[in-house]
């Protein structure tokens, strides 16, 4: 078995789809239809990962997320409707590990669950590569030696570009919000920093991507942040 998954969702049709996908891929799903049920189940069931729909009948999804993070620490994947970018950002900033937008395909869902589980495990046991090396396609980031390789050639990055790449590499497959990146690289969230971040990302794209117009490694989640592709999410 791959793990226990708590599904917090009130719509039967989506619950059916989620449980059938999860069972077929050897996860154990349990369903909570509202916030109170979810909080009880969290304690009794002790899931490895939680799928949380933000639109619940009894409690605001964001409030529930806050409560969950206080009582029990496990990866939370937010399931959200497509039109609310700020809601996603808010959930991510509150400690959600990732989000997935409705409607989604099964492969996308499974990839996100795998990333979330790996992040929880710290990536030590399951991955064959060392924790300090990120590798995807032709791209390799060595966090110990502070260098980025593309197709076995060392790529020269500026100090900040390297720091951004390292931050992304520590969370492969996970979306990092603009604010999170800015706070961790520059320490403050002055409005001008957003521009500096975008310029840095554009430079990194030009150095690492074969075709910057269709990036394979650094994926922009418009209105939310950036995500570094990992093996299960690699499009190349």
């Amino acid at each position, binding site marked *: 078995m791959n793990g226990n998954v708590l599904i917090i969702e009130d719509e039967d049709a989506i619950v059916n789809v989620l449980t059938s996908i999860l069972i077929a891929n050897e996860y154990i799903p349990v369903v909570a239809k509202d916030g109170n049920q979810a909080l009880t189940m969290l304690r009794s069931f002790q899931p490895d990962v939680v799928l949380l729909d933000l639109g619940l009948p009894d409690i605001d999804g964001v409030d529930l997320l806050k409560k969950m993070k206080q009582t029990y620490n496990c990866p939370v994947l937010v399931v959200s409707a497509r039109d609310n970018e700020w809601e996603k950002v808010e959930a991510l900033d509150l400690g959600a590990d990732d989000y997935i937008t409705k409607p989604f395909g099964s492969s996308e869902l499974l990839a996100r669950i795998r990333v979330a589980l790996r992040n929880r495990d710290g990536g030590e046991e399951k991955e064959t590569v060392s924790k300090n090396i990120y590798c995807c396609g032709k791209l390799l980031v060595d966090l110990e030696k502070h260098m980025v390789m593309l197709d076995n050639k060392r790529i020269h990055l500026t100090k900040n570009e390297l720091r951004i790449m390292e931050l992304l590499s520590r969370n492969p497959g996970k979306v990092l919000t603009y604010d999170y990146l800015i706070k961790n690289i520059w320490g403050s969230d002055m409005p001008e920093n957003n521009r500096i971040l975008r310029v840095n990302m554009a430079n990194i794209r030009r150095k690492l991507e074969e075709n910057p*117009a269709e990036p394979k490694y650094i994926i922009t989640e418009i209105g939310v942040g950036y995500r570094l592709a990992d093996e299960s999410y690699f499009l190349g």
Partner: protein
Amino acid sequence: MKTESKQKKMRFDIVQFLNQLVITIVVLSIATAINSIIVFSYEKTTNVSGIFLLAIIVVSTLTGQYFWGICSAVYSVIATNFFFMYPYFAFDFSLAGYPLTFLVMATTSMLTCALTVNMHNQRDRAKQREKMAYLMNEMDQKLLRADTKEEIIRLLMEHLHVQTERPILYLEQPDGEFIFLEKKDRLENVLEGWPKRTIEEKYLPEYYRDACIALEEQHIVNDDLDPVKGDGVLCIPVMWQKKVFGAVCIELGEDALTEEIQEFAQGIINHFAIAFDHQALRETQQQLLMEQKEEQIRGSLLRSISHDLRTPLTGILGASASILENGERMQPELRKKLLQDINEEAHWLLRMIENVLSVTKIGNHNPGLKKSLEPVEEVIAGSVLHCKKYYPDLKIEIQQPDELIMLPMDPILIRQVVTNLIDNAHRHGKSNEKIELTVALEKDYIEISVQDYGPGMSAEDMQHVFRGLGRRKQQEGDASRGLGLGISICKTIVEAHKGQLLAENVAGKGLKVLFRLPLEEGN
């Protein structure tokens, strides 16, 4: 205040007084001279009183004042006795009948004088009234052409400034910004840049408070600012039917306004109050019209959407029902085909819904437009990624400048536009040809175009699709469905960004749809 104005009037009169004195002396001297010539050359005294009478009329007419007429009358009676009656150059009141002559002459002179002066005054008043009526008329003509509030305020300032020749202050709201026109200011200079001044500025006129009071309490404030210097100010609220639009302050300075000018100023202000009222009404009306139009667009959008949604839903319902009913007996290939259809139709519905959601974000006066500075290349990459989810076999060639272009925009909505354009190009172009997406940086805008290799679009269709939400009357099957809606949503989004959406048929290729977004705010 009142005593001051009298003092001012007196001083003003001295110049006029001397002027009129000279006129009177000259006219009477001439009359006396003519009489002397007649009397001493021809020894005829019959014309003496007639000539003096004429002189009185002339003096009254020229000076327009009783005082000078009466002076002339008295002089004429005395002069007749003294110069032209025996004994010459001496008074003799004992002549028989003289008192009567004197009385007749004095009365006639005074009556004539009164008549002339009266006529004079009336002519003056008529002239002034005519002039004011003319000015008012001219002003009304200009007011009729004024569309905006700013224009009306400009006209108001202009007229008051010209008429009163005083510094003028205009205030719209208590403690708000004001416009100030100094006496020496050239009107064009002051009004050109529409210089609104705030309270914080150091040249805040001392009577700013009075303007606020006039505005708040809705009555005229006549403030005696500095009794020693004789400064005063007149603050008049611009109001019509209990609605207050602003307040005008006329700085009086050393000279008070004449009553006529003050009345005239009040008249001007009343006219402007009506103009402001009309303008406000017009604005509300336009607002209503716009809302009505928006409602219409939304209505036809809804109709168009419902129509577009029904087709795929019918497909989904039909296919799923037949699988449910005959699933076991059905051939596996057929069942797979039906499931595929359901999947495709559902995807299509999803894209449709995304479009509709984008439009609801724009809505009334774009409150939902969340602009942020975004790199264009990221938005385009996002669209391409999005499209490749639906069409894994999508062939697209992207050309864009190497430099990073950042634009303020709502990235989700612009991604929707690019996605729609690629989607259209894919469905209408030949599948074996690629789609060309080009980003070009021009001087003051950025142009993003999507070129397909397809049959292009007929002029009639183009008009339908780009004018608004019109659908073609003859539906051309599934291939064309949703095109009108997708494009009109693109148009709405692009126009909400102050850009424009265009399309052309390119010879040898196919349809090219492009949109331009203005570069702004420090790009």
